[in-house]
C-alpha cells in the first residue's frame, strides 16, 4: 500500500523582499536579489513553494578586520581594499550580495567620518553588480549619522541597511523610508522584541516588505539551538499569518561562528581537535546549514571555503525531488 504523506496546510507565507535596483529601476545593479516568499517550512517542497533560494552575503569591512588567518589568507591582499575585496567575493567566491560592515566608523577605533564611509559604499557599488547590504559599527549615535548620509548618497540603489534596534530605530527607519531602502530590524534573540520592533517600524510608515529580521544568532556550540527555536517560532508565526513576524531573516553567521574558540585555535594548542583549517571552515559551514533548516534567507559569511560548501548544500536542498 502506498504511503500517503501527511501534509500541513499553511494559512499564509513569508513576505518577499527585493534588494537592489537595476538601471531600469533607478539603481545601478546588474541584478537584484529576492528573498522570502516561502509558503512552507524550509525545503518541504511537497507542502508548499520555496519561492526563493536562500542567498549568501559575503562580509567585507571598510578597514582590515581582525580575523583569523584561515580566512585572511584566502582573501589575500585585497583585504585592505574594500572595493577589490568585494569584487573578488563576487567573481571568485560567487557571493550573491555584499555585506559591507563599516567598522572603521567606530568612535573608539578609527572614527572615520560619514564622508569617508560614504565613499567606501560608492566604491563597492562601483566595483560590483550585485546588491549591497550596509551596516554600521554598532555605535548607535555614529551609525545614525553615517547611515543617513549613505542612504542619501545611494538613493535609488535599494540597499539593505541596518541595524535598527528597539532603542534606536527611528533615524534608520526614516532614512530607509525617505531614500527608499530596505531595513534590517535587529532584536536580541527575543521573539517578543522582534515582533514589537517590526510593529514600531511599520507604524512609522515603512512597508512590511521592506523589513528584514536579524534575530541575532549564536554560533555552533554557543547557543545556536536557542537561535534555531526563535527563528522557528517566527517562521511558524509568518505561516500562521502573523504579519508582524512575516519578514525574511538575515543571520550573521560569519561573525558568530568565527568568535568561537574552535575556529581560532591551532592544532598545536589542541591536538585532539584536528587541523584548524578544516575545523574553522566546518564551524562556519555548520552554523550556516543549521540555520538554513529553520528559515534563514540571507547568510552573512566570511570564509570562502565555507561559502562554497554552503552554496552546494543550498543547491541540494532546493532540488525538489532530491
Amino acid at each position, binding site marked *: 500500500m502506498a504511503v500517503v504523506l501527511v501534509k500541513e496546510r499553511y494559512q499564509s507565507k513569508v513576505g518577499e523582499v527585493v534588494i537592489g535596483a537595476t538601471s531600469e529601476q533607478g539603481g545601478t545593479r546588474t541584478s537584484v536579489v529576492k528573498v522570502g516568499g516561502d509558503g512552507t517550512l524550509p525545503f518541504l517542497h511537497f507542502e508548499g513553494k520555496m519561492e526563493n533560494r536562500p542567498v549568501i552575503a559575503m562580509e567585507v569591512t571598510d578597514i582590515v578586520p581582525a580575523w583569523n588567518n584561515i580566512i585572511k589568507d584566502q582573501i589575500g591582499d585585497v583585504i585592505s581594499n574594500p572595493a577589490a575585496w568585494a569584487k573578488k567575493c563576487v567573481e571568485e567566491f560567487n557571493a550573491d550580495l555584499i555585506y559591507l560592515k563599516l567598522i572603521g566608523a567606530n568612535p573608539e577605533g578609527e572614527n572615520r567620518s560619514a564622508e569617508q564611509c560614504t565613499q567606501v559604499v560608492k566604491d563597492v557599488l562601483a566595483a560590483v553588480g550585485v546588491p549591497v547590504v550596509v551596516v554600521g559599527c554598532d555605535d548607535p549615535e555614529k551609525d545614525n549619522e553615517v547611515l543617513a548620509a549613505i542612504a542619501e548618497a545611494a538613493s535609488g540603489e535599494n540597499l539593505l541597511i541596518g541595524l535598527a534596534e528597539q532603542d534606536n530605530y527611528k533615524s534608520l527607519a526614516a532614512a530607509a523610508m525617505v531614500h527608499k531602502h530596505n531595513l534590517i530590524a535587529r532584536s536580541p534573540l527575543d*521573539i*517578543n*522584541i522582534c*515582533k*514589537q520592533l517590526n*510593529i*514600531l517600524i511599520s507604524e512609522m510608515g515603512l512597508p512590511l516588505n521592506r523589513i528584514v529580521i536579524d534575530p541575532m544568532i549564536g554560533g555552533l556550540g554557543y547557543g545556536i539551538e536557542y537561535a534555531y527555536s526563535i527563528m522557528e*517560532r517566527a517562521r511558524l*508565526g509568518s505561516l500562521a499569518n*502573523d*504579519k*508582524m*513576524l512575516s519578514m525574511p531573516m538575515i543571520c550573521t553567521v560569519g561573525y558568530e561562528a568565527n568568535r568561537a574558540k574552535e575556529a581560532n585555535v591551532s592544532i598545536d594548542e589542541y591536538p585532539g581537535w584536528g587541523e584548524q583549517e578544516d575545523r574553522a571552515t566546518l564551524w562556519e559551514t555548520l552554523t550556516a546549514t543549521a540555520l538554513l533548516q529553520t528559515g534563514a534567507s540571507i547568510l552573512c559569511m566570511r570564509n570562502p571555503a565555507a561559502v562554497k560548501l554552503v552554496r552546494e548544500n543550498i543547491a541540494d536542498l532546493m532540488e525538489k525531488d532530491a
Partner: protein
Amino acid sequence: MIIIGERINGMFKDIGEGLRNKDPKPLQHWALKQEEGGAHYLDVNSGPAVPSHERPEAYEWMVKIIQEVSELPLCLDSTNYDAIEAGLKLVKRPALINSVPAERAKIERVFSMAVTYNAALIGLTMDNVGIPKDAENRVAFAMELVAAADEFGLPMEDLFLDPLIMPCNVAQEHAPEVLESIRMIKTLANPAPKTVLGLSNVSQKSPDRHLINRTYLAMAMACGLDAAIMDANDDALVDVAATGQILLNKSIYADSYLKVFRQR
C-alpha cells in the same frame, strides 16, 4: 479569536429604520465602526424589520451597500434560506452562513448551499424540539452536524458549531454546560470543527452586561472557543479576546499586541 460584529441587525432601531426606508447610512456606519473596533466578520440580519417574502431582496441590498464601504467578509444571518442564498450570490469574499439546526431537511438544504457557494457554516446544537439542557445532548446534535459536513463535503475547518448560550439571569445552569460542550466539540473530529457563540445572549437584560460578556468570553476561550458573534465596539471585550489569544499561546506576544490584534 474570530470576532463577528453583531450590530447590523434589524432588531436595533437605527438598522430597522434604515431597512424600512432603504437608507444605507446606518448599515454602512456600523460596518465601518465595527471594522475599526476589531471585527473580522460582519453579521447581517434583517430581523423582523422586513416582511418574510421581501427578505431575499433585502439581503441583496444589504450585501451590496455594506460591500461598498467594507472589505470584511459577511456572516449572513437568517432563518430564511432564500434570503441567505440571494446574499451569497453577491458576496465578494467567502461568507459565513448563520445558521442551520440539526434537522435533516434543513441540513440538506443549507450544507449543500454552503458547499456550492464556498461558504463556511454555523450549525446550532438544537432541533425543532428546542435547546438541550445539558452538554451531552448538545454534543449529540453537534455530532450529527459533524457527520453532515463529512457527508456533504464541507471542510471541517469551515463548520462552526454553536452550543447556544442562554441568558444567565434566567437560565444560569446552561453556562457551565455550554463550556463543557465547547470542550467536547473540539474532540469530535480531526481537524476539529470550530466553535462559536452568540455571546451577548449570556447577559440579556442584566444590568452588568459588559462584565458578564467579558468574563464569559475569557472562560469560553479557555475551553476552545474559536469565534463569537459579539459587540465589536466594547473595547474591553475586544481586549479580552486579544489577551486570551496571548495567554493561550495562540499568537506571539509583543508590547503592542492589543493594537496589532485590531489591525486588518
